[in-house]
């Protein structure tokens, strides 16, 4: 007996790519770089189709892309998200330090990312610890 019941929404990751990529392409077009905007549109269109096809697979990655995984797949997603956040935080912190050194103490956009990340982490801890 074969079971290929797929949970979640197959278009979840596709929608994120389409909306995010579309927004980026529109902003680039408005910014004046039409060639890059067309390139971004093509890139994200291909990525969105690939994501839709991959989301239909009976695999861990497919389930995570559908946002419909079981407890182990959700844990994989959480762990990967945490590692990605750690990498982004590290890059933002290094960027803020370099920016401060180069711009007379101005930490710029990197500093904002560090601030949002730090505040979100602290607020999340306060809220989540009450649940457990």
């Amino acid at each position, binding site marked *: *007996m*074969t*079971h290929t*019941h797929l949970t979640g929404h197959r278009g979840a990751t596709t929608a994120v790519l389409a909306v995010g990529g579309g927004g980026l392409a529109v902003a680039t077009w408005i910014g004046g770089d039409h060639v890059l905007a067309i390139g971004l549109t093509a890139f994200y269109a291909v990525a969105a189709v690939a994501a839709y096809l991959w989301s239909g697979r*009976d*695999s*861990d990655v497919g*389930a995570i892309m559908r946002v419909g*995984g*079981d*407890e*182990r*797949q959700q844990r994989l997603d959480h762990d990967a998200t945490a590692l990605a956040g750690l990498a982004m935080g590290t890059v933002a912190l290094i960027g803020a330090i370099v920016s401060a050194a180069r711009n007379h103490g101005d930490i710029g956009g990197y500093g904002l990312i560090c601030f949002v990340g730090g505040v979100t982490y602290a607020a999340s801890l306060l809220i989540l610890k009450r649940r457990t």
Partner: protein
Amino acid sequence: MKNRVGEMRTASGLSQGDLAALLGVSRQTINSIENGRYLPSLPLALAIARNFHHCVEEIFIVDQES
């Protein structure tokens, strides 16, 4: 932690996909549990035990060496 999930599943004549469907999880998760790569949550461990009509302790065994 060792477990007898694979042994009991085979004895029941179920495939990994069959057991996964019965428990509402993926086939990959059953495979990971059987190979000792993933330790299931308490609710899932209880569901596995109930499915085989055994106690949790009879299926999931604490490895003394670890």
